[in-house]
């Protein structure tokens, strides 16, 4: 119980900090809207087939880029304000810090996705508000936030700072992206789960492995 309350405390702190300024959420939100508008013009909307094939990819690109904005912000703030050092001084389990930050980042991404999904429905007329699609989005977000938190905590400590994160994260997140896009396409089309279940399996496997590995090595990143 101690552990969970530590995690919860870290999440609560992040939420409180964000509620005060709303900087991160607003920048993630505005960015997502911009990306959607660009896709609006980039995709040939008259051809329904093209729209159906392209929207899952467009959706995940939007989520990934907005997510990276959030990840960068979240960890950069910790570094600048010295919050991480403060946290490390407390007798909190290192892994609790990881889960707290990761879940917090996932939460912010989910909040943005609550806005993005309906926007996609409105602009592209695609049936995204379905149970399976939501499950896939949540799974994808958790995995991405997990490994993203780890890599971001390294990236902000380098000379290149924010630029480093996409370089580190993209190759690692690639299989998750492919699986998420394919699963979303299957779910969106209303196909039975058996048709696209290998993508769902891959997504879950990715999440489990990468979150487990990230949580195990996180302590090596923050030890100073």
């Amino acid at each position: 119980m101690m552990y969970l309350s530590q995690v919860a405390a870290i999440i609560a702190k992040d939420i409180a900090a964000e509620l005060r300024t709303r900087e991160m959420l607003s920048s993630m939100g505005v960015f997502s809207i911009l990306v959607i508008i660009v896709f609006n013009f980039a995709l040939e909307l008259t051809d329904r087939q093209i729209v159906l094939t392209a929207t899952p990819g467009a959706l995940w690109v939007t989520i990934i880029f907005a997510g990276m904005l959030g990840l960068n912000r979240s960890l950069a703030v910790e570094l600048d304000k010295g919050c991480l050092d403060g946290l490390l001084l407390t007798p909190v389990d290192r892994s609790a810090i990881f889960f707290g930050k990761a879940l917090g980042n996932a939460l912010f991404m989910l909040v943005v996705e609550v806005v993005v999904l309906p926007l996609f429905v409105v602009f592209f007329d695609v049936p995204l508000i379905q149970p399976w699609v939501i499950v896939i989005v949540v799974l994808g977000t958790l995995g991405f936030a997990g490994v993203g938190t780890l890599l971001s905590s390294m990236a902000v400590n380098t000379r290149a700072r924010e630029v480093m994160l996409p370089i580190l994260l993209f190759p690692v997140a690639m299989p998750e992206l492919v699986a998420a896009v394919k699963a979303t396409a299957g779910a969106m089309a209303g196909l039975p789960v058996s048709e696209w279940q290998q993508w769902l399996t891959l997504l879950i496997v990715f999440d489990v492995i990468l979150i487990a590995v990230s949580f195990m090595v996180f302590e090596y990143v923050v030890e100073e």
Partner: protein
Amino acid sequence: MRPKIDVAGSVLTIASAALVVTALALVFLWAPREITMKEVQRIFYFHVAVDWVGFLAFFVTLVASIAYLRTRDRKWDILGAASVEIGALFLTMGAVTGSLWARPVWNTWWTWDARLTTVAITWLVYLAYLMLRGAIDDPQRRARFSAVYGIVSFVTVPLTFASVFFLRTIHPALFAASTEAQGRMQFETGLGSARMGMTLMLCVIAFTVVYVALLRSRIRLEQMADRVARLQQEIVG
């Protein structure tokens, strides 16, 4: 100053040269001719060997990364970084020669099938690793972060392969060109496949020895750089 004779290095160099020359001889004189692709198929031998060793290098880095985090011994950090550098070189050569083979055979420079995509992603990971090291000045932090990334990114290789592999089984039509050419090599002489197998094995061995030789040189270079840095410290301090 009397230079010490580097026995191990000389042995490795000679062995590498000998193996490569032998491999070349086998590839061009002994290996069977492929029916459809004719001579161009001979690229396959070095291309596969160099890709294979390029991935082996990643495994070496994984082990070195884990060892570093446990022991904090600089030698593991040097090994991991050197292995990535040479692995990147090998994968670059593998990808380029792969394209040079693909062009005459499939009439395209590149396809996003399972193997090529995995090579591309692994190459990006190598690049990311090297850029990460370049962006950190503090040696301890650089070693630590590299080790962490080496471990985390290793998982992506089998997962990427799996993800694109599923892609191919669902949409076979898209990859018709590659599925045809891959693994369907037929040879002129009766002992065709056996000879191909043995030639390939020798090429893999040859490139593994080349890898070890290059690795050793790169490690010694880094150790020398460490000595220089230490001396500079001594003089300043």
